[in-house]
C-alpha cells in the first residue's frame, strides 16, 4: 500500500494521521460469510480497537484495509478517497504490524527494519543505518540490530515489526493481535508503544485484538465484532455498559471456580 514515491521525510503525503471509513464491507470464502456489512469510521489520530472472539473476521477485515484482500462488496475510504484508486498508494503511508511479526527470517533485525528504505532506494546506506538504529531505540531494541529474527522472543519480534512499520513514517498503522502470545509485561510495553506513537507522531491506529486489557487500556473507541458483524461501537465506557448479551459475554467471560 505504501508507495516509494511517498517516501518518509519527503513530506509529499499529508502529515499526521488519516481518517478511515469502511462502508458496508462484505466478504465470503467458499460460501461462508466472513464479513457481513461492516461499517465504521476512524478519525485522524484516533486509536480504534476492534475486539471480538477468534474467527469473528477481525484479521480478514485488517487485510482488506491494507489491500491484501479484495472485498466482494463495499468500500474503504482513506481521507475520503477509495483505497482502490491508483493514487492512494502514492498519497498515504500505511503499515501493518502482523500478528506473527512476519519478519523476513533470512535478514537480520537491522536489515528487516531498513528493508523498505533500502529496497526503494530512498536513502543512502549510512542514513538508513542511522534511521534503523533510531527506530530500534524507540522500541527499546537498539542492541538487537545484528540479531537474526530466530534469536528473538515473541515480544521482541513484535517490537521489531513495529520499528519496521515506523520506518515508513505511517499515517495509518494497523495492528493484528499485537499482544497475542505475550506475557502481561510485554503486552503493557506494546500497549504503551501504541499510545506513544499516537502522542508522538499523531498516527491513526487501528488495533485488532481479543485482549480486553489492551483494548480498554489504549482505545479511544472500541468496536465489538462477532460473526462478521459489528455489534457495537463506542468509547470504552459506552462499550462496557452496552447491554447486548453477546458483548457482555465477551467482555466478562471468566473462569468459574468451585469453592
Amino acid at each position, binding site marked *: 500500500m505504501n508507495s516509494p514515491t511517498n517516501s518518509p521525510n519527503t513530506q509529499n503525503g499529508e502529515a499526521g494521521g488519516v481518517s478511515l471509513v469502511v462502508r458496508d464491507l462484505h466478504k465470503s470464502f467458499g460460501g461462508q460469510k466472513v464479513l457481513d456489512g461492516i461499517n465504521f469510521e476512524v478519525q485522524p489520530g484516533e486509536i480504534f480497537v476492534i475486539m471480538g472472539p477468534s474467527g469473528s473476521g477481525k484479521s480478514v477485515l485488517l487485510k482488506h484495509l491494507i489491500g491484501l484482500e479484495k472485498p466482494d462488496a463495499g468500500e474503504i475510504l482513506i481521507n475520503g478517497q477509495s483505497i482502490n484508486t491508483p493514487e492512494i498508494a502514492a498519497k498515504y503511508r500505511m503499515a501493518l504490524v502482523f500478528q*506473527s511479526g512476519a*519478519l523476513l*527470517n533470512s535478514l537480520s533485525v537491522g536489515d528487516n527494519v531498513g528493508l523498505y528504505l533500502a529496497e526503494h532506494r530512498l536513502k543512502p546506506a549510512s542514513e538508513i543505518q542511522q534511521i534503523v538504529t533510531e527506530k530500534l531505540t524507540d522500541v527499546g531494541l537498539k542492541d538487537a540490530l545484528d540479531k537474526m529474527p530466530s534469536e528473538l522472543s515473541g515480544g521482541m519480534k513484535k517490537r521489531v515489526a513495529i520499528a*519496521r512499520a515506523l520506518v515508513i513514517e505511517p499515517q495509518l498503522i494497523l495492528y493484528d493481535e499485537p499482544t497475542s502470545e505475550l506475557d502481561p509485561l510485554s503486552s503493557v510495553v506494546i500497549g504503551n508503544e501504541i499510545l506513544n506513537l499516537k502522542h508522538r507522531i499523531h498516527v491513526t491506529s487501528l488495533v485488532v485484538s481479543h485482549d480486553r486489557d489492551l483494548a480498554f487500556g489504549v482505545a479511544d473507541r472500541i468496536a465489538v465484532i462477532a460473526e462478521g458483524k459489528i455489534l457495537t461501537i463506542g468509547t470504552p465506557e459506552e462499550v462496557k455498559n452496552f447491554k447486548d448479551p453477546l458483548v457482555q459475554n465477551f467482555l466478562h467471560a471468566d473462569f468459574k471456580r468451585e469453592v
Partner: protein
Amino acid sequence: MFENIGDIVLLFWRILLALPQTWRQRQKVYEQFFEIGNASLLMVCMLSFFIGGVIALNFGPPLVERSFTNAVGGVVGLAIALELAPVMMAILIAGRIGSAMAAEIGSMRVYQEIDALRTMNINPINYLVLPRVVAISVALPLLVVFSILVGWFGGAMVADMNNHMEIPFKAFFSDMRDIVTMKDVAKGIFKSFCFAVIVGVVSCHQGLTTIGGPRGIGRSVTKAVVNSIVLIVIFDYIITRFLLNE
C-alpha cells in the same frame, strides 16, 4: 500440474516484464548464483564423470566389435553434449535448487513474509522470483559446460582403460572432433537454458502458491521437483524436434 499451466505462464510473463529490474537486484542474483554453483559444482562433476564413463561402457564395446572404433568418441561426445548433460543436470538442479526455492518461498508465504513485503510495496516477483530465475538461468548452462567437459573426460578414460575398447585418449578426442561440432555443444547449452527457466519458474510458482503449514510446504517442494522433471522431459522433446533438429 496442467491445471496450473496458465498461472505458470502468467508468472513467466511477469518475470519477463520484471527483467529490466535485474540490475537493481544484482546483489541478490549474485548471492543466488553463488549458492547454486557452490551447492552443485562438485556433484555435477562427479555425476558427469560417471555418466560419460557408463555411456562409453555401454556403446563402446559393441561399436568396437563391429569395427566402428572411430565412432565411439563421436557417439559418447554427442550423447553427452546434446542430451545427457543438459537433461541430467537440469534434473539434478531441480532436485537440489528447485526444491530449495519452493521451500524457501513457500515458507515465506505461509509465515506471511510475502504479505509483509506487499504491505511495504515491495513486489515479491522483483524481490524473490526474478533473482532466483536469472541466477539459475545463468548457472545451469555454465554447469552444463562443466558437465560436458567432465563427461567427455570420463568417457575417454573408460574407453582408454577398458579391455574391450583400449582407445587411446588422443584418438578418442580426435574421433570426437570429427563428429561433434561447436554447434552441437551450443544446442546442449541452449537446451539447458530452457530447462533452467522451467525449473526456476515452476519452483517459484509452487512456492508462491503454497498454502497450509509445514505440510503445505512439503507438498509444494514435491510438486516443484516432480513438475519440473515432467516439463523438462516434455520440453526436451519439443525443443529437439522443432528448434534443434532442422
